[in-house]
């Protein structure tokens, strides 16, 4: 029997970039999994957690917990949200041992999409083809650079991979960061955009939807033709 995976598409993919979620589902199905989507899901609670709003973060975190408590695998298309769920979720319940234990258990079953493919599904070839010049942008909290997504891109046929110059650096998105430092956020995004442009790639691939949207907006505003894509969209392409 095929193993079952639950998608946690995140609020951002749901509302802003649904094609990344669909691509993720397709890749997982092709890798032999039964894919389900639980309608009660909304957000992981990261915005409130990072903003320091404990009670709101805890409420939304509990909602996630209740929604997925019996899931075998929860696969997430965003590095930022996956980090929140697999690392920080238990910290939301310092005074509630039973919720804390449940969160700890569930957090070990939450997987960022690319890690799931490599470490659980152990995919070899995905039958993907993508005849373009592609670069990978280390999205949210991927310091140091992550090998996983690059390994996956190397499995894609006809893909011309080019590495960005310099060490990975933040794109400037950072949730509510823009509220506090709009100018710095812009400067950071511009800097990363120049790195991307310098690579002459036609597509920039990432694993966090927040970062991808931030870069997409800057690229569009600058009238650059470079496309932003979620890794799943490249892997789903045949």
């Amino acid at each position, binding site marked *: 029997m095929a193993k079952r995976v639950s998608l946690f*598409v995140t*609020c951002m*993919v*749901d*509302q*802003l*970039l*649904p*094609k990344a*979620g*669909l691509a993720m*589902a397709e890749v997982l199905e092709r890798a032999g999994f039964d894919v389900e*989507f639980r*309608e*009660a*899901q*909304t*957000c992981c*609670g990261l*915005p*409130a*957690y*990072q*903003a*320091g*709003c*404990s009670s*709101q*973060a805890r*409420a*939304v975190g509990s*909602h996630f917990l209740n929604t997925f408590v019996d899931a075998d695998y929860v696969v997430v298309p965003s590095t930022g949200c996956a980090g929140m769920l697999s690392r920080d979720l238990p910290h939301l319940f310092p005074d509630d041992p039973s919720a804390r234990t449940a969160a700890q258990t569930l957090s070990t079953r939450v997987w960022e999409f690319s890690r799931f493919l490599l470490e659980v599904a152990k995919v070899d070839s995905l039958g993907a083809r993508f005849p373009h010049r592609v670069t990978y942008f280390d999205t*949210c*909290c991927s*310091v*140091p650079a992550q090998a996983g997504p690059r390994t996956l891109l190397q499995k894609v046929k006809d893909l011309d991979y080019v590495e960005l110059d310099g060490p990975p*650096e*933040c794109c*400037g*998105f*950072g*949730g*509510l*960061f823009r*509220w*506090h*430092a709009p100018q*710095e*956020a812009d400067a*950071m995004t511009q*800097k990363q955009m120049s790195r991307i442009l310098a690579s002459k790639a036609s597509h920039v691939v990432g694993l966090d939807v927040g970062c991808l*949207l931030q870069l997409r*907006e800057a690229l*569009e*505003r600058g009238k650059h033709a470079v496309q932003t894509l979620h890794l799943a969209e490249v892997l789903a392409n045949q």
Partner: protein
Amino acid sequence: MTTTSTLSTVDTSTLRERAAAIKKQVLANLDHYLVETEKQVTAHGGHVVFAQTVDDAVDYILLLAKERGVEHFVGARATNLANDKQALRNEIEALGSDLGSYLAGRARQPDASASYQLERLLAAGIGITGANFVVADAGAICLAEDDDFGRRASAAPKIHVAVAGIEKIIPRTRDLAVFLRLLSARFPGHVSLLSGPRRTDELDGPEEFVLILLDGGRSAILADAAKRELLQCIRCGACLARCPVTPVGQMGALTRLLTPPHTASPLVHASTLCGACGEACPVKIDLPRILVALRHDDRLALGGWRAWLLRGWAFVMLRPRLYEFLGLMARAFWPAAWKGAKPAAKSFRQLWRGKGR
């Protein structure tokens, strides 16, 4: 295959592990190391003073000066402290919590390097320095500088007063092999290991040595599990150097915890939490987590419309139907002029249902 191993090729990650472990061990047994330090400094002819606050340290120095009839002080950072209490206070505060050579070089008064007069040094009765490390088993302080101002201020005047936060203690002289390498990955410098006053067979050095161990709010940080790690900081500046935002202001928000009034500033919110600082830190302080912990501190919590917005956001996120409805509304009425995070034509859940699942 032959492998060559030299000092310079020692694996940095091993060094970082070692450094973090040593610092953690000291902090967990700080009472023991404070006593040990006092014992060894005294055995080397020096004198240890424990100061609860910066003001206590200032008062002590002024008293010492009065007793010894000293009129001029020099500091390693500000050239002439005269008998100006506020200047002395600033100096102590800066030394106690300074960000190491990385910032000291920038923060130094512009006249300092140009007109640092030997006469002034020699005229001073008290030379005040900081300490990068306090070495418990040697009863010594270690200065690691990118110039030799501290060394001069320690050696020329009759009395050398070193001011160090209590967290700067390391257990053994040989631990310097770990820490100095982590510091010196970033700057070349002058390293001095100073213990006690001048001995009879020595040509220079002070006649009196006093080590002021400054608490300055550190024991309160130590008691706070969420922030404790911050005391591992060796002030190397690596986190600032790697920060993609506005380094000094941003990580400075954290280090301000070490200076009065021991509260971080609202700047803790001005970070994307990208993790570069934590990754760079040679003693493995989880800086992003501490930033988040500080944001959860009531005094720094978001206020005003932002707090209300997040309350509203949580209300919606707990109600999937309301959440979906508002998504539909946003699509229907999204002003064409608003680009940015424009919603997709259909949400994921609409598309998923459309596929007949």
